[in-house]
């Protein structure tokens, strides 16, 4: 069993990893099953070691599209624990439906916790009425994750969901029956190779807040700085993995501050000072300002991430590309992967395949932005 470490103590809670990441999006908004991404992840099996696998899928709950879908993991058999979470949720939300997340008991996984999902609408009271729905949900998710021991909300967006755990990705997919149960227009996945901290169900990727998800290959050496900065904005890292900071940073910068990914990429992976020196005055001023204002959110260390939210999937590496990335496209399908072979395994005849320079994002957007609403409908 994993004991909670206080979020403010000084313990090092990050890890080093060499993982596999994969993302696929149909930019027409068409929803497809999990078969493709499961096959792609199997192709990269040697990049992980069976101690963590996970998926994020967008467009899976059209029947509850207006409700936040909270996926909750109970690390403890104690029935009082679930009751405590239930009471908290019923007190703070209008829960329209809740059920155990269907799982396959035959799947090759060990000691899975209990997984439950709640479809909820905020019930704001008093001071909380000032908050937007999204901010209210973030606040309540943070409360459960930091104050209720052994219960973790690991997915909290509308019409999307994260499924993750300890095992190879195909085993986790089998456990949650992703191949047959769900259809989405964006799928991202991760296979983990943890070395510094234990492989546990909550520590698997993707990391999620609202509908923002991140899968990550690398190690964030700026974790401490990033984490402390995010705490000032009410984000608390509780999952013992450095990747968590990217999910919260993306929520802060893109959702709350409304910055486009093109700018956020330059906050996470800014140009070197000598490159900034060679820019024309306007650009130099912009990049200098960006580096000064957002210095605590510079992500240092090697990384390849795939970030997703409704309507958009983004692949990004650190500025000197210390982790691999390959992008490919075929018609409306966009792929981002640790290895080209994994893309070819599921789509042999690509129209185009390329590797962006370090710090330059690969961006997939729905062809028709209005489709976002359609898909959500």
């Amino acid at each position, binding site marked *: 069993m994993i004991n909670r470490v206080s979020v403010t103590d000084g313990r090092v809670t990050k890890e080093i990893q060499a993982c596999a990441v994969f993302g696929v999006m149909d930019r027409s908004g068409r929803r497809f099953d999990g078969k493709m991404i499961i096959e792609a992840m199997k192709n990269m099996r040697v990049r992980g070691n069976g101690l963590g696998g996970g998926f994020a899928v967008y467009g899976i709950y059209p029947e509850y599209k207006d409700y936040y879908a909270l996926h909750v993991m109970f690390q403890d058999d104690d029935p009082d624990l679930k009751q405590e979470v239930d009471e908290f949720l019923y007190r703070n939300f209008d829960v329209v439906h809740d059920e155990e997340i269907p799982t396959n008991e035959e799947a090759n996984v060990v000691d899975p916790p209990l997984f439950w999902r709640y479809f909820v609408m905020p019930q704001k009271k008093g001071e909380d009425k000032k908050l937007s729905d999204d901010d209210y949900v973030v606040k309540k998710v943070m409360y459960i994750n930091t104050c209720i021991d052994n219960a973790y909300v690991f997915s909290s967006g509308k019409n999307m969901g994260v499924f993750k755990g300890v095992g190879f990705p195909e085993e986790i997919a089998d456990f949650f029956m992703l191949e047959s149960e769900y259809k989405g227009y964006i799928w991202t996945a991760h296979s983990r190779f943890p070395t510094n901290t234990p492989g546990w169900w909550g520590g698997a990727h993707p990391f999620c807040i609202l509908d923002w998800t991140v899968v990550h290959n690398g190690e964030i050496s700026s974790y401490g700085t990033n984490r402390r900065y995010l705490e000032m904005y009410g984000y608390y890292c509780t999952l013992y993995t450095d990747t968590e900071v990217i999910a919260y940073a993306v929520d802060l910068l893109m959702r709350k501050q409304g910055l486009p990914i093109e700018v956020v990429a330059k906050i996470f992976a800014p140009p070197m000072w000598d490159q900034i020196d060679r820019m024309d005055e306007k650009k130099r001023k912009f990049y200098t300002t960006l580096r000064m204002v957002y210095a605590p959110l510079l992500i240092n260390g090697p990384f390849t991430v795939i970030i997703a939210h409704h309507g958009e999937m983004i692949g990004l590496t650190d500025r000197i590309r210390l982790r691999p990335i390959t992008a490919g496209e075929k018609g409306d399908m966009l792929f981002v992967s640790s290895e*080209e072979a994994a893309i070819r395994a599921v789509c042999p005849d690509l129209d185009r395949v390329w590797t962006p320079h370090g710090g330059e994002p690969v961006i997939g957007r729905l062809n028709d932005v209005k489709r976002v609403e359609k898909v959500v409908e």
Partner: protein
Amino acid sequence: MGMVVRLRDPFMDWVRRIDEIINAVNFEGNTAKIDATGLTHKELNDLIRLCVEKGADKIILKNVCGQRYIGTRLYFPGKRVEIEIYGTPGNDLGMFMNGHRIVVHGNAQDGVGNTMNEGEIVVEGRAGDVVAMSMRGGRIFIRDDVGYRTAIHMKEYREKVPVLVIGGSSQDFLGEYMAGGVVLLLGLNSKKHRANYIGTGMHGGVIYIRGKVEPYQFGKEVGIVEMEEEDYRRVEGLVEDYLKFFRGKGVDEKLEVDEVMGEKFTKLVPVSKRPYGRIYTY
């Protein structure tokens, strides 16, 4: 209820015995064909080694998809095998290779020719990061672009001088910590090279760059010197081979050596054999 951690080895746990996979091999004279569909890294390399032991001098691999280390466990001094690959070979293609020839009809991934000792690798497409890492002999030809840190710590010793020819362009840190060997970057499909930090930490060998490149793109440890007659001869010979390998296979049939040689070349050599000698003192 402590968590049971099952440590599994993703390289070895799914490996089948030779007799369970031998049907993937088809011998015709001295040519062996292997269908790599569904084979793990080790299984494919086991079969390749078996084929060489059984006398194959040509091996054709079909449906390769991500299998790593192809050409690695083939230390047979004096023997030269040709391996043709259809599909996408995985990382560390030709790693530690000693004297064989690999042709890839497609793209390659990271680490092509890692610490390769002798032989030749020809890629009819692009390659990923750290191509020719620590390479110490033989030749590599990549038709298109390469990724980051190409030729990192490539080295030479006496008659063993590794050669890397890239038809497209490179990303950053080309020739980082390079200690020997020859790198030729042709830039056939780009107006200007984008790579920065070229030759950072370089302390041996030579890099030739065809086409437009600015001084700020070079690391502090390299200097530009004049192309001599001998350099032009060497580059021309490599361009001839490049065109021989790739004409009609993604490179214009009509492209002539003179047309390639007509562009400006920049020659980079290290300024010092010990660029960090003053930093790491004791």
